[in-house]
């Protein structure tokens, strides 16, 4: 079992991939390291959100993903 990191919207292009599988557990510093410097820089911005297991984290720096969880990286939205 692993933690799946999913890149949404423009972060997919920045990462050059749709998803990345890493060994769990995964915390904030582990996430920053796993995604590479370009995506990590974006994650530092307040307007980029992180969801874990289908819930948006109110404080993304307290990420604590277990094996089997999906961690979604959510850039600013543009609907309608």
């Amino acid at each position, binding site marked *: 079992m692993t933690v799946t990191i*999913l890149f949404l919207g423009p972060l997919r292009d920045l990462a050059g991939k749709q998803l990345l599988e890493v060994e769990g557990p995964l915390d904030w510093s582990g996430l920053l390291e796993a995604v590479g410097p370009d995506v990590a820089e974006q994650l530092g911005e307040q307007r980029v959100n992180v969801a874990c297991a289908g819930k948006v984290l109110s404080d993304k720096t307290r990420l604590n993903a277990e094996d089997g969880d999906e961690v979604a990286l959510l850039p600013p939205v543009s*609907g*309608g």
Partner: protein
Amino acid sequence: MARLTIDTPLDVRLLDKGLSVGEALAAFNAANGEAGGVVSFLGKVRPDGDVRALELSHYEPLTLPGMRELAEAARDRFALDGALVWHRIGVMTPGEAIVLVATAARHRRDAFAAADYLMDHLKSAAWLWKRERRADGWHWIEPRRHDHEDIARWE
């Protein structure tokens, strides 16, 4: 052809292909027989410069649940009889419908305000990402400051 059935009081959908506006509004109207007024808004892909296509992507665990919460908030805030919130995902071409919102209320001002509220929130708070294909390829669309000013009106 099976008749379109509308969930009441809230019908919230993500659609991966074209939507029939007339059929949806007729069914929504029929489902809200007690309402004094129905307001609808149809958002379309603007034929703009060299934009050839537009693509909306979503995130399954968040997008539809978030739209449902938004519809519930609108119903409570504006005392709606019902609301229809349909959003396209996938690839669309200029002139195609992207979003259809309809609100039914006892009085027209609630229905107008609720449709406006729903649209402002769909534009800048729904979990959707938009990109455009122009002559030189795909470009992600950043949210505009205007969109955030629109949503701030409701705080």
